[in-house]
């Protein structure tokens, strides 16, 4: 079992952790005085945490719950009695009795000075900025009553905007150098595309040799966007082109919506995290002018059929036929960030990846073939939009191999944030809407497809189907809730014993089906390293999602994000699954229909191979 470290933080940036008394530590609590209030806190708690636990507000900018401590913006400074200088609340661990002032004159003045300095270097105005209303710098300026630029304000651009990437746009003139993106890329995701370069006043966040983002080994996960406090990073927004398509009466514009945006889009309209907006979203999309609203969960179910069959085929070939060229464990391939990660970082291990396309791309291929035929629409007149929680999906739909329909299978990948913006622009307040269902023929989906949105969901969905195919019985978990798949531990491992198999699957009798789940590429790296070391020989199936938390924490999701928010979004998805009638992919009637009518040679058959499977590129880390 691969142990999941509590924190990937460099030792030097970890807060001091003092053992609790019952764990053999010395007295575990310490009393501090904050603004005259006496407060008991656990040893090693940072001043910021102590203040938050007691509803004392400390402004922050570089601090982020998901990231290691930096302590560099200095906006959170507080005064500690007896100390010459102010201390950053976010990094200072409490280990002895301290008297802390969070709003003394020195503190307020220093914070205001820091804010004025940051604003003097921050290009542009709030009203021409896509983060208007959701910008941490703007909030701070409001909090401190900034009504002018005390130390001037730059009026000329100093950097060109990097629009090279299909997924992420970088505007360094908006950057406040909080290094959240750097810490996200290096520490949280362990990709390491972004780093500070130059020194002093010339410091800037840059890529390898300042190359365009498209030319370096960025995996497009967009986690940096989710954590950027300002508008320095954003997704590549195609909504203008989508409006044009909607406005064009000749175009048949269809949209597929992934499971996790519906669990999070309410946040963009002021709802607390954890409110599913599935039905209201459908109505809004129709009001906006999409001709058909489909559910990506349908192709998630299809993915389970294809990927589950592929797994069983691999097992059969390896265990029965003794074919040693078959690679196991099989890795999932629905996360385009993860796919690009493995292409860059482990190019010699691409045979372990399932050849299945992601649900988004399967959908695109089906719409411009099966759907076009059934409805007599010329595929060239169809525009397919995919509402995704993801920035990497934008890259994925532009991959040259994604033309199996003869056309670009998915025309546009749209993030949850961009969709919310389109809805706002259409004058709709989402929570006010009456709900409506999805359109046929891809309207009904199972709960298995729905839970794809959370880490472990693909595995759970696959197990619900594979177990039943092999044994003819339901997977032995109460309410079909395969709890070992759930949760947020970085790497999870579990197994299900296959017993009482059907004759066809006799070779699996008594076999423990061992599976692993990893989310966030830093955890994927741990799994891959174990694979390289040869430690995963008895593992059969591994789910990897590039983003922490899976799709609900995707790079296209509403900002902000935090472990708590991701947990709420996941709960919303699991709750919705619980209430559905069909919760197993193979029982989705439309899935049965499409295998009868269109994909007639079955899962992993000839037609499905042409339309639903793909191949990968050995990218490596070579940067031209």
């Amino acid at each position, binding site marked *: 079992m691969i142990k999941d470290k509590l924190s990937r933080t460099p*030792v*030097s*940036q970890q807060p*001091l952790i003092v053992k609790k008394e019952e764990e053999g530590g010395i007295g575990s609590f310490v009393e501090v005085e904050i603004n005259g209030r006496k407060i008991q806190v656990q040893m090693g708690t940072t001043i910021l945490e102590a203040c938050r636990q007691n509803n004392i507000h400390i402004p922050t900018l570089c601090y982020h719950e998901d990231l290691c*401590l*930096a*302590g*560099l*913006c*200095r*906006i959170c*400074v507080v005064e500690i009695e007896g100390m010459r*200088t*102010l201390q*950053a609340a976010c*990094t*200072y*661990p409490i*280990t002895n009795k301290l008297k802390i002032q969070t709003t003394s004159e*020195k503190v307020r*003045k*220093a*914070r205001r*000075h*820091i804010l004025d*300095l*940051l604003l*003097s*270097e921050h290009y542009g105005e709030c009203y021409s900025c896509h983060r208007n209303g959701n910008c941490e710098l703007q909030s701070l300026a409001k909090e401190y009553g900034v009504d002018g630029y*005390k*130390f*001037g304000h730059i009026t000329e651009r100093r950097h060109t905007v990097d629009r090279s990437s299909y997924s992420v746009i970088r505007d360094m003139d908006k950057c*406040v*150098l909080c*290094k959240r993106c750097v810490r996200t890329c290096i520490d949280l995701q362990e990709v390491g595309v972004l*780093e*500070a370069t*130059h*020194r*002093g*006043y*010339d*410091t800037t966040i840059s890529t390898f040799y300042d190359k365009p983002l498209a030319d370096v080994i960025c995996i497009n996960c967009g986690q940096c966007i989710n954590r950027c406090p300002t508008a320095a990073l954003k997704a590549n927004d195609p909504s203008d082109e989508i409006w044009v398509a909607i406005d064009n009466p000749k175009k048949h514009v269809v949209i597929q919506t992934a499971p996790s945006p519906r669990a999070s889009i309410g946040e963009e309209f002021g709802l607390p995290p954890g409110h599913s907006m599935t039905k209201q979203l459908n109505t809004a999309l129709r009001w906006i002018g999409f001709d058909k609203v489909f559910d990506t969960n349908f192709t998630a179910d299809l993915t389970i059929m294809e990927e589950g069959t592929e797994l069983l085929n691999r097992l059969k070939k390896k265990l029965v036929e003794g074919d040693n060229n078959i690679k196991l464990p099989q890795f999932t391939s629905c996360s385009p960030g993860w796919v690009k990660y493995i292409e860059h970082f482990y190019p010699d291990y691409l045979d372990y990846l399932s050849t299945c396309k992601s649900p988004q791309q399967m959908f695109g291929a089906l719409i411009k073939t099966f759907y076009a035929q059934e409805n007599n629409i010329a595929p060239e007149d169809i525009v397919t939009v995919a509402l995704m929680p993801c920035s990497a999906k934008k890259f994925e739909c532009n991959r040259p191999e994604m033309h199996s329909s003869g056309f670009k299978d998915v025309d546009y990948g749209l993030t949850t944030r961009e969709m919310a913006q389109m809805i706002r622009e259409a004058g709709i307040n989402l929570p006010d809407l009456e709900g409506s269902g999805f359109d046929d023929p891809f309207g009904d989906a199972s709960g298995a497809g729905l839970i794809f949105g959370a880490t472990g969901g693909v595995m759970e969905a696959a197990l619900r189907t594979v177990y039943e195919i092999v044994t003819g019985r339901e997977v032995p978990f109460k309410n079909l809730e395969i709890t070992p798949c759930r949760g947020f531990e970085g790497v999870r491992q579990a197994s299900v014993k296959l017993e009482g198999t059907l004759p066809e699957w006799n070779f699996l009798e008594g076999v423990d089906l061992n599976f692993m789940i990893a989310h966030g590429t830093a955890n994927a790296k741990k799994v891959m390293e174990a694979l390289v070391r040869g430690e995963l020989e008895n593992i059969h199936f591994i789910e990897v999602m590039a983003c922490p938390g899976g799709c609900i924490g995707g790079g296209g999701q509403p900002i902000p994000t935090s472990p708590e928010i991701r947990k709420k979004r996941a709960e919303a998805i699991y709750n919705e699954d619980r209430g559905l009638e069909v919760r197993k992919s193979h029982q989705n009637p439309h899935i049965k229909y499409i295998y009868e009518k269109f994909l007639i040679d079955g899962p992993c058959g000839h037609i499905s191979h042409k339309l639903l499977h793909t191949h990968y590129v050995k990218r490596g880390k070579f940067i031209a």
Partner: protein
Amino acid sequence: MPIMNDTIQFNVGEHRLALEKALKLTPQDIVMEIREAGLKGRGGAGFPTGTKWLLALSAVAEKKFVICNADEGEPGTFKDRVLLDEYTNLVIDGMTIGGYAIQATEGIIYLRGEYKYLLNKLERFLDEKRENNQLGNNILGTGFNFDIKIRLGSGAYVCGEETALIESLEGHRGEARNRPPFPVNTGFMGYPTIVNNVETFASAAIIISKGADWFKKIGISKSYGTKLVSISGDCKKPGVYEVPFGISIRDLLKMVEADEAKAVQVGGASGQCVPESQFDRKISFEDLSTGGSVMIFNKSRDMLHILKNFMEFFVEESCGQCSPCRIGNKKLLEGIELIEQGKCSYTYLNELIELGKSMQLASKCGLGQSSPNPFISILTNFENEVFSTK
């Protein structure tokens, strides 16, 4: 070649037995002796060396490190170069004693990139020490193992700050870390580490050699012993001098025959600018603290020009990590340019001085906390001169 002028304590022959003597003591005894002597860090910050060593000694870890900060980068400081060149044995023995005192097995000299020409000489010297069994395994038959390697800096001023130095040694960008945790707990590669200035190690060897009581006879209360100062600028006899703590600026100026001095910058670019009216102030930790730099300016010098030079230095040398230092220094420099153009109002100047004070309070490391010093002291002490000509 650099030469140290009149010496008080740094007599090589006399301290030859410091290491041998130290290894006969217990680590605790050494730390107590250093504490008793009241030795404070010679690099500029003046942290009590004995306390630092005691903390590192009491830290429990499988490995500990001793780092000699030879990244002498403060403008106007060149005394460590002399120590490394002419008093190498004292420095190396001081490091070994420090290693024994905190029970470390590895030492690293972080040598300023510009001092690369000393590298071969130092390496040869370390080889010699190894041959004489004063470094390596089982030093002088006592069972104590300690060896020293040399790493070169690459010219960043901030890497003289101890945590930035450690980051640089680990192969990262030279940027200061958060403290706590302090290096004595979590230093190089996460292990307890002492980082001391070259002169501090040499002084420690002297204390072990001659005893704390002898050491405390020199200097003034709270600032015992002697200080090496590197004096430059408008004087007839610039160079490195060993002076007792408590010496006044006036006496220093007399010593180096600076007759026309108008201002003395004590402590390098990040130090204080002392006007003639304050020449009775003393070099000591309680008054004018210096890592060694003393720069003399005579009546022909333009103070604003000097200040601008310093601020350009800080804008360039800030690591760029924390906002007060990265942007603040630039704003102070722009203020100086406004003064030059006769466009800086008193209101704005006062705003900048207040900004400087915030930088002193809120910057992450010593660089940003001290970079406004020359701005504030020159514009306060020489306000009339600066504004009368502009």
